[in-house]
């Protein structure tokens, strides 16, 4: 039974081991084979998560907990991995000579993220976070040009600082309460002391770093811009899901006091405002998406700071919607970049996409509209339930501000769509879609619409997951 609780992680570890052995075997495998193998592996991981969906229990002396909530997030992370692997089939993204390392770190990052979503102990959490972070630092550095090196070093330094802050906070909290487990933290008599609260805030900073929310957002634009597109997609989707997972789990145990809600409210406010304003000025599409993700992190915080089961459930729902719609955009960015033979497409490179490939343009349009929260798409339903949870707790100003921000965001999302639909293309050359890309795009399109129109199933799943995790 125990091994079943740890099944997806075990499979991932086996995959890492397999790829390391392949590296040792010195037998040159073509990147194509490696990608296919990785795709198969990611699929098996996803299936194993779904299989283990209903198992729940504790592992490793109560520091690790698998329940519906963690499995839901693991399913998202696994899906993020699978989609990222599917996007990886371009030499532009992954230099052929580095394909092995690329997949090893991709798997280890996934392993770390899955462990994050199951951690109920500060030390386990720290180990998991470092595992995923260091893998991501390396993944962003794989392209090896100057720009890339600079941004990955920036990412590393800021990330290390984040970890340091986390450790500082954790040492305060653990020192005052005498326990590292989440459940123990709230019951500890020290939980009202200012130093304890300060520790909590420091710990939260590390989570905000992963979520790319203000004030820990500085790394996002550079990293998004310079990393290979599939890696950016991975950071923007799976890593975000892991961040939401740990925030949900942590806030659930610590509870959201009025002061904490106020603090998170300030961060949400800054994230939304800053992300959306800065995105208005961007020309580089990946940089634009980075600022958009900062803004989106703000919306998620608005739901989280409600501190109610509805708030947590809607954050989970929104993380799922966000994964789908963001991957939709990144799929298009990836294919445009591939046709362009340059991994940093600017807004102008999307000109006339509708003529070059109507299907891609449609996917882009709907994903962007969904990000902007236009019905009947997944992003709209997600925002609706996020904000109604926050409104329920009386955060009307934040909700109003968030909604107004969504309107602002529509401007830059529509600008990108306008380039795709209205500008004349500089080249008439059509973008040919391979079979898998076509079906991937179609699948994303359908799920964005389906999640928007028929959300009930997923909302009740999310609510069940949250209520299951609430019982200590």
């Amino acid at each position: 039974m125990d091994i079943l609780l740890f099944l997806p992680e075990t499979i991932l570890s086996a995959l890492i081991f397999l790829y390391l052995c392949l590296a040792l075997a010195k037998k040159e495998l073509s990147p194509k084979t490696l990608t296919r193998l990785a795709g198969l592996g990611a699929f098996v991981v996803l299936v194993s998560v779904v299989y283990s969906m209903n198992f729940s229990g504790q592992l490793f002396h109560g520091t690790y907990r698998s329940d519906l909530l963690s499995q839901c997030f693991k399913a998202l992370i696994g899906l993020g991995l699978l989609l990222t692997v599917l996007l990886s089939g371009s030499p532009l993204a992954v230099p052929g000579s580095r394909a092995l390392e690329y997949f090893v770190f991709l798997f280890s990052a996934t392993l770390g993220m899955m462990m994050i979503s199951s951690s109920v102990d500060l030390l386990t959490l720290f180990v998991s976070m470092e595992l995923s972070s260091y893998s991501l630092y390396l993944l962003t550095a794989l392209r090896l040009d100057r720009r890339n090196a600079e941004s990955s070093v920036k990412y590393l330094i800021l990330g290390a600082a984040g970890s340091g802050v986390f450790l500082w906070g954790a040492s305060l909290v653990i020192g005052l309460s005498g326990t590292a487990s989440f459940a123990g933290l709230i019951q500890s008599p020290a939980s009202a002391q200012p130093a304890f609260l300060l520790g909590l805030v420091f710990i939260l900073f590390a989570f905000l770093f992963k979520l790319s929310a203000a004030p820990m957002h500085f790394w996002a634009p550079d990293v998004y811009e310079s990393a290979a597109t599939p890696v950016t997609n991975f950071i923007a989707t799976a890593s975000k899901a892991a961040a939401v997972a740990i925030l949900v789990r942590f806030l659930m145990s610590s509870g959201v006091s009025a002061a904490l809600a106020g603090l998170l409210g300030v961060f949400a406010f800054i994230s939304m405002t800053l992300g959306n304003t800065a995105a208005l000025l961007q020309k580089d599409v990946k940089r634009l998406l980075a600022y958009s993700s900062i803004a989106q992190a703000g919306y998620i915080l608005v739901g989280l700071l409600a501190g109610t089961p509805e708030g947590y459930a809607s954050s989970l729902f929104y993380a799922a919607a966000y994964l789908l719609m963001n991957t939709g955009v990144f799929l298009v960015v990836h294919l445009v970049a591939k046709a362009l033979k340059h991994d940093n497409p600017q807004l102008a490179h999307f000109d006339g996409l509708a003529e070059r490939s109507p299907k891609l343009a449609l996917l882009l349009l709907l994903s962007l509209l969904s990000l902007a929260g236009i019905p009947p798409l997944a992003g709209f339903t997600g925002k609706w339930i996020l904000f109604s949870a926050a409104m329920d707790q009386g955060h009307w100003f934040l909700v109003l501000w968030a909604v107004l921000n969504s309107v602002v965001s529509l401007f830059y999302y529509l600008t990108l769509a306008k380039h795709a639909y209205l500008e004349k293309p500089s080249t008439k050359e059509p973008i040919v879609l391979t079979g898998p890309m076509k079906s991937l795009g179609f699948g994303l399109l359908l799920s964005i619409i389906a999640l928007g129109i028929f959300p009930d199933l997923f909302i009740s799943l999310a609510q069940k997951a949250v209520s299951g995790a609430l019982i200590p």
Partner: protein
Amino acid sequence: MSFPLLTCILLAPVTGLVLILLTPGRQETLIKWIALAAAAVTLVLSIWLCLKFDPANTGFQFVERLDWVKSYGIHYSNAVDGLNVWMILLTSIVIFCGILVSWTVTFRVKDFFANMLFLVSGVFGVFMTTNLFFFFLFYEIAVIPMYLLIVIWGSTNKQYAAMKLTLYLLLGSALMFAGFLYIYSLPGSHTFDLIQIKQNVSFTAEAQNVLFLGLFLGFGVLAACFPFHVWSPDGHVAAPTAASMLHAGVLMKLGAYGILRVGVYLLPEGARHWAHLVAWLSLCNIVYGALVATQQKDLKYIIGYSSVSHMGIVLLGIATLTPVGFNGAVFQMFSHGLMTALFFACVGHIYDGCHTRQLSDLGGLSKQAPVISAFFIIAGLCGLGLPGMGSFVAELLVTIAALSVYPVIGIVSLTALLVTAYYVLTAVQKTFYGPVSEKASHLRDIGLFQFIPRAILVGCLIYFGIFPQVFIHLISVSTKGLLGA
């Protein structure tokens, strides 16, 4: 559940949309016929709805209800009363005529008709739903295709106008969104169902005042309430003919309908509190719209500003908070919808033939194209409130109500009607009489096929102008019930 007539009205354009998307883009004629068939089905069903509507029933009729997201109190629920039954009919008339008028579209035909049907599905949805979630959902569905319609098929500064329109409307919807969620969060609520909210939630005076103001501003943007009207003339001018028809004819009514259905229905005290503000703003609409219209050189801008002015009459009717005023407001929504649709249908044809809408370039069109000129002049006469036309009765009702509640505003708005007469007659005189201008000499008159949609609109205008009782009969029960009397 009985036969889901309302859902069928909604599904007809949706089905048409799906069929069009499945049809290859080359088969333009087939696509047009599919769109027309979908519109015809909605038209027949809407007429049937009006005929089967029971005017003695004070509550909602044709109620349909399906749980959607139970935990959030979101139901797919539709119902009609005297207010929206007419709005649904108006929408189906305008879309039917709009599709006939757009038979001349040749650029990206498939996308055009798909967008039209998508837009109209949203409009139908807003008019029939009784759940705030779906209200908002359908509202936004109606806005986004409008952006595409203007930006792809539009004219005159279209990118600017389209972005302006979209951002304005979504800004309005942001206020709605926040307002709806606020209603949801009130004690005893936790549902988005309009009828349940009305029954279960007791709003405090403060909540009523804040909410009504927020919702009024939100809806007011779409209803082109002064000072949020600036998007509307630009949008009208830039939009292609059929989109202008739908936009001025139906879309702006969504805002006024929202004020009545959500604002006044749920928050009667809030409405009373702000009624003076609404009345003064509506007066600004009426006077300012009419004055600006006198200064315009472009035929479409004249109609655009006249719409601003006429929407002021709707808002004034609402602001009186009397059954008579409401009747007048809804009647004005209905007849103004038909009238502007007719206006834009005529201007669209003139623009296609002359490639200009500047008054100075036009002249003597009545010699060149007597039929289209006659239609335009009829619309113009309706616009200045000629007895025997729908608008006359509507404006009469609103003015009567306004004079009794706000005598000063009533009198000033009456004088504004003179300004309306001035700009309408000037435009008619410059465009249709005098020597035939050089550009106008290319204009051909409309054929029989293009005669039909305009004739339908004129027919309806005159029918309801002569038999206003048909209209008043169905709505008076519901407008009396609005204030909870």
